[in-house]
């Protein structure tokens, strides 16, 4: 890989990272929010590296004769200088053993860089949720009384805990509002309200689901705020109770900024 291409690649990768993490919220589709400072710092470092590579001139005596006479010596001893001259790359590539010029594999880095800049794929959605296990819900010992607000905004996890673990059955007959996206249940035309959660990046995603009864399945991946009451199935307050909702009202909402946490939704600014 030639020096100008390396420069371009470094700058593009840096720009891609800054584009996703600094100027937009796109990075939240792929990694946890806490990585943002690291991504911005990486973008700046890569841009600086690219800039430094662009402005530094190669030392004068390294031109043609050097490129011819010196590189075989360099090869044999294995201590040729990194990116000495692009003539070296050529010879090395032709001989099929690259020692220290940026090797061909680096071309692959163009893919994520361009993808970040031009074609950022959407956040994970119903396709992934339909194929994953439910995230196990942590056991909670005591439950505080529910606030009197109606409908009461709850996260999918909190709703599941209330249904399956709260012996006081405070959730009974309460109107709650849950936010998530639609995942079709498949077999019977039913559907789930789902959130995908990840602890580091989209590769370790986990899914929380609440079954929704009483309405036709909206298109997959639609973000909804659903108001309703617990769908009585099983014994409330025990493991037999299904985390399910009888829907009264479902209205489309914009995907929240924090789509990858099971928190109450933050609407995009």
């Amino acid at each position, binding site marked *: 890989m030639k020096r100008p291409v390396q420069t371009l690649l470094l700058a593009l990768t840096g720009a891609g990272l800054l584009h996703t993490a600094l100027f937009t919220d796109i990075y939240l589709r792929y990694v946890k929010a806490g990585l943002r400072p690291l991504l911005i710092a990486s973008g700046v470092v890569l841009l600086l590296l690219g800039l430094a590579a662009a402005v530094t001139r190669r030392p004068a005596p390294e031109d043609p004769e050097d490129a011819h006479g010196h590189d075989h010596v360099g090869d044999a001893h294995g201590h040729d200088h990194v990116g000495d001259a692009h003539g070296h790359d050529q010879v090395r590539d032709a001989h099929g053993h690259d020692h220290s010029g940026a090797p061909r594999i680096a071309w692959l880095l163009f893919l994520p860089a361009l993808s970040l800049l031009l074609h950022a794929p959407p956040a994970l959605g119903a396709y992934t949720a339909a194929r994953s296990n439910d995230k196990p819900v942590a056991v909670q010992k005591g439950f505080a009384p529910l606030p009197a607000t109606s409908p009461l905004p709850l996260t999918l996890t909190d709703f599941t805990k209330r249904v399956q673990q709260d012996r006081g059955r405070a959730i009974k007959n309460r109107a709650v509002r849950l936010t998530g996206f639609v995942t079709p249940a498949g077999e019977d035309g039913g559907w789930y309200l789902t959130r995908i959660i990840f*602890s580091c990046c989209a590769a370790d995603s986990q899914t929380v689901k609440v079954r929704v009864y009483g309405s036709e399945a909206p298109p997959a991946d639609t973000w909804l705020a659903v108001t309703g009451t617990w769908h009585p199935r099983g014994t409330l307050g025990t493991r037999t109770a299904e985390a399910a909702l009888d829907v009264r009202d479902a209205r489309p909402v914009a995907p929240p900024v924090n789509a990858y946490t099971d928190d109450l939704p933050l609407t995009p600014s």
Partner: protein
Amino acid sequence: MEKTDELVGVAEGAATVALGPPVRRVRPRPLGAALALTAGATAVLLLAGTAWLHHPAVQAWHTVCLAITVQALPFLLLGTALSGAINAFVPADLFTRVLPKRPALAVPVAGAAGAILPGCECASVPVASSLIRRGVTPAAAFAFLLSAPAVNPVVLTATAVAFPGSPAMVAARLVASLATAALMGWLWLWLGKEEWLRPLLRHRHTGHRHGHSRWTEFRLGFQHDFLHAGGFLVLGAMAAATFNIAVPRSVLDTFSGSPWLSVLFLAGLAVLLAVCSEADAFVAASLTGFSPTARLAFLVVGPMVDVKLIALQAGTFGRAFAWRFSTATTVVAVAVSVLTGGVLL
């Protein structure tokens, strides 16, 4: 994505042929080729973006692949910066002075030193390679390479958070990871051959050279290591994303019944999924159907061997090394996990 891939390869081949010795002095040509390539890749992305790019499986693959790459880039950058700094600024004899003279003793010391590199596995590969180039015995560098992603405070804290109320899991992970790293270092002393490593690593002629600016050496080394490892990272991320999409999580439960099969299955899963070591404890915690020992195997194997790491190691140390080392590490890690799990969990 495969389509774009091919295009890149073809375009590169063409550039190499076209820029043979006679035209080598023409300066603007490489930049022109790069621009043409970029434009071509963009066009392919935009045109192909009509149909198959929008299939949910392809989109999910693209998302996971990009997520693994983006998540790993800062750590890879940290690792390659450290590696560049070690090459350019650290005196050649520092490591040989600090580490015990006898390689058999240097191995466990280097393994324990892994605790000071916070971050996940991508950072430790370039650092280990620069340690070898600075004269550290490869066995000790490999012990460091294996232990660093698993025993640093960030990862152990994440493990404690993911397994609330079972500190034994944190202890078991620490003990099993250190033991595996040390055993692999000693195994290398016993059976390892230097000719499996790439020639550059064998000759050890790198480092600061008199009359060159240390800063320039640092920058060029950093840049080269990053581009090199970054390419392999993308390759590994592609492989990991493929398995991530192809293996639905609901398949897992079928293997959870048998204690022996489940250990092997989760070890294999750790290799294929390539989850970052800072997050794998959360994945392990979600595999509720499996025994604690099987989950420990997942936590011990994951940071040491996975498809992303195999790609990085093949690029950094050479292919002959990578497959031998990864196979041996998997076997040792599973055995150590079973023993540790039997005692502690």
